[in-house]
């Protein structure tokens, strides 16, 4: 049940209002009339009683019942008088009663003068006296037919005037009600259509109605105008924003491509002279142009180390740029995981032996062949392993552990008992060019590119990498990779 309509409520309100007013007016009129009729009846009866009391004084005085009765009988002309009588010396001296009427019980305790209304009659009492001598008491008893007549007239007026008037009031009340509810209903349906069709260009037609309704329509139209304006503004802003985003994006893409090109080109350009430097340095170190003294050998070794480090750095950088530019294509091949790991260990043996670090390998026997980019896999492991060796003190331990990890995946963990990583640094660990405390970098060397590149390569294989570390007790880097790249579990 929906809440009732304005029209309905207005109708009820007006019916209630006019009905109440009519009822109040009718009742007021009724009571006023009753009061009038009553007091006029009383006045008339009192006048009659006064007259008869005066006229009958002598008859009572001289004990002439017959004469008194004749005087009382003059009341015959008053149809409302039921009875009248004179009491003297404690008995009824003379009595008149209307034909076929009953004389109702009388109570003369009201004394010689006064009146008494009952629901059936009115009795007026008057003293009969002469020269100050009280001779007797007159009573005139009247019926209340006039009051009954008033009630009947009221009923008739109510029936023939008040009820039709109420009906007319209801009919008239429909008119303003329509003038109020119609525009509101129109407005409601317009609001509904605006809401559903999002057409903010429509306007509610101005109406000739109550001031509040007109105000409502005006406000509604203003609101529509405001919504329309904002709607257009938003659309324009949206379009501008999209354009700007597109512009910025393409700008960025251009810039990024330029950067990549620059870096790729630069790396290549850098490698060429560097290869020359390293090549000639090796040539010198081999002692082919001539014998070198110890000092010269030592310096030449430094040149070679620096050159190789620089080459390594440039390679990493080139790789990272390629990976991030999506230019690396994986050359997937099937190979033995154990072999791959062994090959990497062999690559770092010199460093490990020079720092007397034991590298333990533990490969789950169930793990056998994997299908990955063999070179990239080795690069990942090499980076992790060389990091582990780098940050492990002489005589420490480094472990490689490979195990099944969920369906179709394995986990490669490289752990050390080196210096570890502070927990607040772990978040920055895989970001390019970020190195943990410059002091550490200086002490252990490092490009700041290794882990970023590693992460990119792992991601390229559809794997994940994370690290667990306790500062001062060592770190464990864990790489999860699929057995077959491109087949995710």
């Amino acid at each position: 049940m929906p809440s009732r309509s304005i029209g309905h409520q207005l109708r009820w309100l007006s019916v209630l209002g006019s009905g109440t007013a009519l009822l109040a007016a009718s009742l007021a009129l009724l009571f006023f009339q009753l009061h009038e009729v009553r007091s006029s009846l009383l006045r008339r009866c009192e006048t009659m009683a006064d007259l008869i009391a005066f006229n009958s004084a002598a008859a009572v005085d001289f004990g002439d019942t017959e004469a008194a009765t004749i005087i009382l009988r003059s009341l015959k002309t008053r149809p409302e008088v039921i009875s009248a009588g004179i009491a003297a010396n404690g008995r009824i001296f003379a009595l008149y009663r209307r034909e076929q009427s009953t004389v109702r019980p009388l109570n003369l305790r009201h004394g010689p003068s006064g009146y008494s209304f009952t629901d059936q009659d009115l009795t007026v009492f008057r003293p009969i006296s002469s020269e100050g001598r009280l001779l007797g008491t007159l009573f005139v008893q009247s019926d209340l037919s006039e009051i009954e007549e008033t009630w009947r007239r009221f009923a008739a007026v109510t029936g023939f005037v008040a009820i039709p008037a109420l009906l007319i009031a209801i009919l008239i009340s429909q008119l303003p009600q329509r003038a109020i509810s119609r525009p509101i209903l129109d407005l409601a349906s317009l609001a509904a259509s605006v809401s559903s069709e999002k057409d903010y260009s429509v306007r509610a037609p101005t109406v000739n109605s109550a001031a509040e309704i007109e105000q409502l329509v005006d406000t509604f139209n203003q609101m529509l105008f405001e919504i329309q304006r904002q709607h257009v503004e938003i659309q324009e802003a949206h379009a501008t924003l999209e354009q700007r985003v597109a512009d910025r994006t393409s700008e960025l893409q251009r810039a990024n491509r330029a950067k990549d090109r620059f870096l790729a080109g630069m790396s290549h350009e850098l490698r060429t002279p560097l290869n020359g430097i390293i090549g000639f340095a090796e040539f010198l170190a081999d002692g082919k142009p001539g014998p070198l003294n110890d000092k010269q050998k030592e310096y030449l070794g430094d040149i070679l180390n620096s050159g190789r480090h620089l080459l390594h750095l440039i390679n990493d950088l080139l790789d990272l740029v390629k990976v991030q530019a999506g230019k690396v294509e994986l050359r997937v091949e099937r190979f033995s995981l154990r072999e791959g790991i062994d090959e990497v260990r062999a690559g770092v043996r010199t460093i490990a032996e020079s720092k007397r670090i034991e590298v333990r390998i533990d490969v789950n026997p169930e793990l056998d062949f994997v299908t990955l980019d063999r070179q990239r896999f080795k690069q990942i492991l090499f980076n992790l392993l060389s990091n582990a060796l780098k940050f492990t003190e002489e005589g420490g331990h480094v472990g490689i552990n490979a195990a099944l990890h969920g369906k179709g995946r394995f986990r490669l963990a490289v752990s050390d008992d080196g210096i570890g990583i502070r927990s607040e640094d772990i978040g920055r660990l895989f970001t390019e060019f970020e190195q943990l405390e410059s002091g550490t970098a200086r002490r252990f060397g490092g490009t700041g590119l290794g882990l970023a590149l590693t992460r990119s390569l792992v991601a390229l294989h559809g794997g994940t990498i994370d690290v667990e570390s306790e500062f001062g007790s060592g770190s464990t880097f864990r790489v999860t990779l699929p057995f077959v790249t491109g087949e995710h579990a």
Partner: protein
Amino acid sequence: MHRRRAWPWVLVIVAVFCVSQGRGNAAIPEYQVKAAFIYKFATYIRWPATTVPDATTPFVIGIIGKDPFGPALRDLVRGERVQGRVILIMRLSRLEEALRCDVLFISSSERGNLRQIFAALGGAPVLTVGDMDQFAELGGMINLITTEDHQIRFDINKNAIDRAGLKASSQLLHLARIVDESRSGGR
């Protein structure tokens, strides 16, 4: 149209209230009633304004001839007043004294002297009351009559009252049989 109740029509409950009047006529001696009438007549007759004296002058009720009232009239008027005047009962010994009266009761013993009495009054404002046959027709003003059922009625000779300059109230006239000297009229 009347609402009716099946009650018997005479259901008149008369509570006792004070009416300071003598008791009913039936058991009362005739002259006691007549004495009361004479006194009451005074209240329904107006004397001409010129002759009305001040309140200190007594209101004189004279009796001429044989007094039939005994102590009744005297007892009756004791302490009563007419127009504020003390009532004085006077037995006339001489005819001239009649002019001093306001009311003159002419005893039936004076029936033979009526002409002289009326002549002596000569149109003076004296209310003449009698209780003899044809008193009013003979020129008296009010004649008291005892009916067969022992009720007291009265005849009034209105002309005689008018001639004396007195004024009888219409109420009184209503109760009386009006007569005059020339013919005997009925009510």
